[in-house]
């Protein structure tokens, strides 16, 4: 019996009940449909000419030392945010994406989408080369065809449509301008369906322009969020989490600590961290927000903006608003807090809030002086098409206004709400071109499909704020016959007789030389360029911009609009999925399997409903309902959800992509209109069917067990000293000998927001397998670290605590004594070691682990990995076969690496030399790692906090991880 084990799928005896509803259960998720996948060895930066056999380095590449990793800075763009990242490369290919320490805002943290999108580079579904009318062709033919099409379109007098995502790159913008010069009929539309169109509309009416607002959560003491999931899905979540969490970990009960008020219908990640949470229908937010404006003016004496009269706010008396009545106490406390906080307040709203609510938020920020302090709008936002604009565009397409349409990295065939209208529109455009990474829904309807480089194979620059300009550089030569999108445009320009540059790198460097490098710079451009590439960014010192000023009459108009009352039907809130975003990551196994931070479901999107509504309809988790439009979908009872509010995430229900297909429900079609996020629903009708949710956590409450402590600040202040001190329990076991460092961790539950970035980072670093929805349902997910989410208090407004749980590396590890073959034992540095090649798989260790952090390879999850995906494996970590137990190793490979570097440099190992993947990825810096045998190390100091505790300490396992109790700061303490 060898290691060539058959695939995950069990052909004969899998349950047939899942097939009809969830076709994914039949498929192999990492299995490949295509055969080719032979990949060039990607040697450094040389272009891969052909798919030759692998050749060892007889002439060593300068940059590559086999076995030593290289790190390159780059940038990852998602929507209107550009994250500066540091990418680890081994043997000339990227294997792990982390944040770039040089960036002044991100400081080494990045979005877990960037980490996960490593799989996008190696996705076996990627187009290998240009496809014309269904057959592979070469670039010359493709480019010729495209240029001819553009010329014909220009000649016909009809327009040429170019749809792209938000353009954050000044160089790309300049190139597009050049293209527009060459093609007068070109209409460039920037389309981001997941953008917050309410916010943009509000800014446009209030300020006259839309900016990329920067929120300084680290400066805010009182934060009010109206359907604004800034920790989970709203824009730049990384700096939001970092700033927010920084104010959540006071050293003592005296503070300082921020206070978060959340008003929302469903339960979002931000809602789980709320100190005061108000479950309320989104349609009521506009009126609540204006009521706050009025109250802050009357009670706090803050002046209303010029042009907005008190009389315009008469309809919004807090005492008289029916929606406000159940929450009178909270709202009063909020008003007090806001007035006391002044410019340390921050009021923000999200896409599900109405335009009026956004306007009211700006008014509040302005009145309190927070505008310009906690909320800044300095950088002009890209000119995205609004929802109305895009609808008009589709109408124009249907009217035959365009002779050619190019869709570059956008997928409107999937995310445009009206399928019929879109199909009709596409039919009226004769020449349809798709420039993109994967053959997706839009590509299926385009005659010419041009594959682009992944961002890890691309050059570019990005500007999202005026003080930092970031660069993107490729980590590997393009794996397939792809080009960068900008290079395609350059070829078009050349074909149109307006050559601009040989390639995009040339264009980029020329722009940097002529426009970016300061004119008085003393160093030659080559050095300047290399220095910027090394750092991944260029810092500048722009002049400060004045705070934005509101247009008073627009405020008054918004107030008038807000007074209208919505019909009292059920409201469906559509939220961007925290993992799949707008659907673009549907083919990403890591993100599909990552549990939703709140519902803990993976591989799908259930319809969340309040437990009251679920009871009324006699529904439980997994029961199918129909919304009257679209197919039936399963529900999930969500504690804390407002009655009458339903919630569904966008980004699922794709039908192209071997991993993405048939997973979840396509919520985009429910919207009815582009970018609409709140809908009135007549009701839900149970259909009687069932679909088991792929839950990674079945039980939601602690049942009185002291395993994840959460206190209010007041409780913390009142805790008697003996409860806060920890003494060592007596033990019959001899103490472990201690020489050298003993590795341990401190995890601050107060900082942790439950985002799950640690889960994805660990999966990337340690080659953790994706198992698919059927195995997740059976309870066999392989994540080495998980975030447990517990509700406390009553189901209508619960308090939530997130607890990352990973191997505790216990000193008295119960797993070590019971392994019959000694496959798991204790290292001298305190790590519980796992010897995969010795494990016979009796699973006694898993039974004896009280934390249940051990994962068993019940089936062969890895040997069928497609060849291109195998490149994503970290070569420093074994890929485990079937029948072997695995678990967190504290990234022992990083520890050993650091050890060897220290030896080479003839110095002792410093515990700051090592950061495990989870600690590095956590935007809240909740996970701190280091030497707990050294009382002066960072982790030791944090562990000594009187908030510290060990999980299940009474079992005598002596875990190496100290958790710090989560703190909440509900109103009633006086000063915020």
């Amino acid at each position, binding site marked *: 019996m060898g290691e060539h084990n*058959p695939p995950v799928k069990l052909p004969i005896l899998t349950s047939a009940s899942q097939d009809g509803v969830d076709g994914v259960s039949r498929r192999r998720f990492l299995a490949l449909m295509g055969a080719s996948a032979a990949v060039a060895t990607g040697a450094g930066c040389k272009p891969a000419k052909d798919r030759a056999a692998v050749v060892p380095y007889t002439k060593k590449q300068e940059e590559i030392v086999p076995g030593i990793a290289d790190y390159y800075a780059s940038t990852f763009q998602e929507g209107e945010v550009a994250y500066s990242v540091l990418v680890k490369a081994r043997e000339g290919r990227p294997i792990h994406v982390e944040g770039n320490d040089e960036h002044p805002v991100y400081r080494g943290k990045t979005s877990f989408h960037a980490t996960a999108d490593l799989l996008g580079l190696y996705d076996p579904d990627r187009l290998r080369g240009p496809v014309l009318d269904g057959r592979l062709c070469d670039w010359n033919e493709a480019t010729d065809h495209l240029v001819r099409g553009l010329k014909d379109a220009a000649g016909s007098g009809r327009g040429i449509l170019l749809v792209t995502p938000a353009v954050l790159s000044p160089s790309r913008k300049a190139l597009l301008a050049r293209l527009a010069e060459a093609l007068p009929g070109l209409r460039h539309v920037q389309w981001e369906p997941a953008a917050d169109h309410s916010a943009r509309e509000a800014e446009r009416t209030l300020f006259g322009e839309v900016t990329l607002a920067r929120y300084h959560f680290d400066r805010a003491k009182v934060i009010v969020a109206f359907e604004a999931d800034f920790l989970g899905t709203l824009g730049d979540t990384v700096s939001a989490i970092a700033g927010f969490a920084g104010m959540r970990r006071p050293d003592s009960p005296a503070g300082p600590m921020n206070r978060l008020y959340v008003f929302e219908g469903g339960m979002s990640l931000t809602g789980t961290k709320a100190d005061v949470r108000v479950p309320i229908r989104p349609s009521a937010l506009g009126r609540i927000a204006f009521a706050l404006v009025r109250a802050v003016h009357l009670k706090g004496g803050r002046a209303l903006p010029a042009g907005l009269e008190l009389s315009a706010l008469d309809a919004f008396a807090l005492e008289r608003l029916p929606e406000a009545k159940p929450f009178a106490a909270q709202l009063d406390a909020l008003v007090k807090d806001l007035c006391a906080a002044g410019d340390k307040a921050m009021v923000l709203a999200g896409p599900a809030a109405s335009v009026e609510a956004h306007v009211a938020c700006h008014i509040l920020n302005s009145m309190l002086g927070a505008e310009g302090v906690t909320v800044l709008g300095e950088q002009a936002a890209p000119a995205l098409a609004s929802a109305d604009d895009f609808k008009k565009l589709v109408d124009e397409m249907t009217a035959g206004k365009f002779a050619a349409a190019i869709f570059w990295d956008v997928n409107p065939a999937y995310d445009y709400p009206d399928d019929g209208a879109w199909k009709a529109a596409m039919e009226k455009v004769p020449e349809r071109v798709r420039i993109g990474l994967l053959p997706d829904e839009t590509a299926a309807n385009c005659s010419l499909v041009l594959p682009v480089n992944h961002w890890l194979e691309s050059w570019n620059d990005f500007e999202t704020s005026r003080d930092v300009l970031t660069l993107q550089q490729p980590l590997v030569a393009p794996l397939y016959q792809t080009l960068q999108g900008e290079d395609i445009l350059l070829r078009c320009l050349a074909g149109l007789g307006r050559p601009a540059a040989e390639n995009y790198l040339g264009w980029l460097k020329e722009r940097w030389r002529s426009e970016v490098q300061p004119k008085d710079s003393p160093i030659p451009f080559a050095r300047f360029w290399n220095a910027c590439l090394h750092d991944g960014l260029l810092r500048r010192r722009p002049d400060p911009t004045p705070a934005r000023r509101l247009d008073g009459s627009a405020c008054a108009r918004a107030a008038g609009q807000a007074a209208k009352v919505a019909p009292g039907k059920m409201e469906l809130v559509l939220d961007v999925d925290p993992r799949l975003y707008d659907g673009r990551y549907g083919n990403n196994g890591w993100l599909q399997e990552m549990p939703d931070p709140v519902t803990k479901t993976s591989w799908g999107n259930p319809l969340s409903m309040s437990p009251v509504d679920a009871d009324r309809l006699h529904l439980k988790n997994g029961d199918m309902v129909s919304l009257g439009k679209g197919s039936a979908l399963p529900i999930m009872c969500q504690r804390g959800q407002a009655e009458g509010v339903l919630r569904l995430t966008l980004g699922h229900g794709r039908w192209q992509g071997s991993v993405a297909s048939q997973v979840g429900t396509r919520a985009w079609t429910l919207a009815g209109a582009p970018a609409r996020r709140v809908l009135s629903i007549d009701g839900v009708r149970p259909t009687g069917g069932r679909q088991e949710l792929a839950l990674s956590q079945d039980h939601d409450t602690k049942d009185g067990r002291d395993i994840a402590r959460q206190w209010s600040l007041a409780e913390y202040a009142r805790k008697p000293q003996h409860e806060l001190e920890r003494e060592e329990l007596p033990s019959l076991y001899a103490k472990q000998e201690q020489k050298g460092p003993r590795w341990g961790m401190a995890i601050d539950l107060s900082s942790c927001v439950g985002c799950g970035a640690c889960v994805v980072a660990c999966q990337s670093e340690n080659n953790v397998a994706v198992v698919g929805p059927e195995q997740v349902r059976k309870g066999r997910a392989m994540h080495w670290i998980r975030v447990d989410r517990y509700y406390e208090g009553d189901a209508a407004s619960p308090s939530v605590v997130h607890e990352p749980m990973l191997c505790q590396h216990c000193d008295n590890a119960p797993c070590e004594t*019971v392994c019959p073959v000694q496959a798991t034992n204790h290292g001298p540095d305190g790590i519980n070691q796992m010897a995969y090649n*010795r494990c016979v*798989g*009796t699973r006694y260790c*898993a039974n004896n682990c009280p934390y249940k952090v051990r994962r*068993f390879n019940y089936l*062969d999850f890895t040997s069928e990995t497609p060849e291109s995906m195998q490149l994503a494996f970290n070569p420093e970590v074994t890929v485990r076969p079937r*029948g072997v137990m695995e678990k967190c190793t504290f990234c022992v490979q990083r520890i050993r690496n650091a050890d060897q570097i220290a030896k080479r440099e003839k110095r002792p190992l410093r515990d700051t030399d090592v950061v495990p993947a989870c600690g590095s990825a956590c935007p809240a810096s909740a996970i701190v790692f280091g030497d707990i045998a050294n009382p002066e190390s960072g982790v030791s100091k944090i562990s000594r906090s009187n908030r510290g505790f060990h999980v299940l300490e009474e079992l005598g396992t002596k875990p190496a991880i100290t958790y710090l109790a989560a703190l909440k700061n509900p109103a009633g303490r006086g000063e915020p």
Partner: protein
Amino acid sequence: MKPATAPLPEALRPFELIEGVVTPASLDHQVLQFPDRRPPRAWYVALAVTLSALAVGVFCMGYTLYFGIGAWGNNRPVAWGFGIINFVFWVGIGHAGTLISAILFLFRARWRNAIARFAEAMTIFAVMCAAIFPVLHTGRPWFGYWLFPYPNERAIWVNFRSPLVWDVFAVSTYFSVSLVFWYLGLVPDFASMRDRTSEGLRKRIYTVLSLGWRGATSHWLHYDKAYLLLAGLATGLVISVHSVVSFDFAVSLVPGWHMTIFPPYFVAGAIFAGFAMVVIVLTVVRKTMNLSNLITDNHLDVMNRLILAMSCIMGYAYFMEGGTAWYSANPYIQHTFKNYVSGFYGWAGITTVTCNIIIPQIFWFRRMRRSIPAMIFVALAVTLGMWMERFVIIVISLHQDYLPSSWHLYIPTKIDFGILLGSFGLFFTLVLLFARVMPVIATSEMKASLPGAQASHGGASHE
């Protein structure tokens, strides 16, 4: 001459071991005829059934080896399911045979002679069924030999602190001692078979198997000594083997497993289940092979009394578990105990208590102890109840332990059931084959119980 004593009450009097007149010759003929004859059609039908069950089991085991333990219902947190349940169940079944062969031999309970051979054979077969599972249930069974301590070039020993290693020693010792003990007892009977058959392959096989036994006095002396020694060794095993198996659970920290009552509780349960299986098999055997005069109603009566006694001990053990959970004030154990009788798997706990404690209580009544339908019903209930008890202990304790975030149900798959069925198929196939080719009663021992075989002590026949 001893003074005459008052006659003993009937219940305490030794019962008649044999019904009717039996001479050594008739005994030989009655027992040793079967290997010579064609078995009746019913035997073939039964064999076809058990072989089909075995075939299902073999297929499911092959499926498991090919695809992995994922073919079963195991998951996180329930990493042990039917595999270990079946293992403990079958090891337990074997204990009755050893108790009858060894312990009752040392106690000079002559009634054991009629049933010892079959019971001991059932022990061997039960341990064979059990031995499949520790290897089959591992993730990489082709490395199963690593569980044995053998010197190797990597200088790695097994982890002697692990109960699974103790299992290896206990079960392998159990099997080897039982096999040798059983074989030793068979030698005189093989010799009888050899002497009864005429030329041919069968005679040659019996000749080899009988090791040159001629019934000489020196042979009998050696035989008696060896038998006594092995009985002594095997006696210890009755207590130790299942205690060691119980350590798999008791040594861990899983709530519901970590209890000091487990070793005696498991040993009692093993004897309990084993006797139930012996009763089921022997009631069928004595009917189909016309051995009712040798395996009398009295034998069955005594065995049923043992079953009753064990049932009461099990009742005490269950009560103590609940009592421990209550006074320990340990929320984890209390939660687990509540799950034993309520919740998703509560039906399993109720079934266990009903089958193991309540139903066997009918054996307080003599009529029930001597009624074949009643004892088959009780024995089947006990078999089911004891299997269900292992299910309760393993699955219910594991599925909801310390951290509620990892709570998850265990749903066995068709492969799980197929392997369980296959194990029964293997056991009963071996039983049928044994009955076909070997003497099912130890004729040499039985002859010692015939009237006139023992030196009489002037009328009083205690022994």
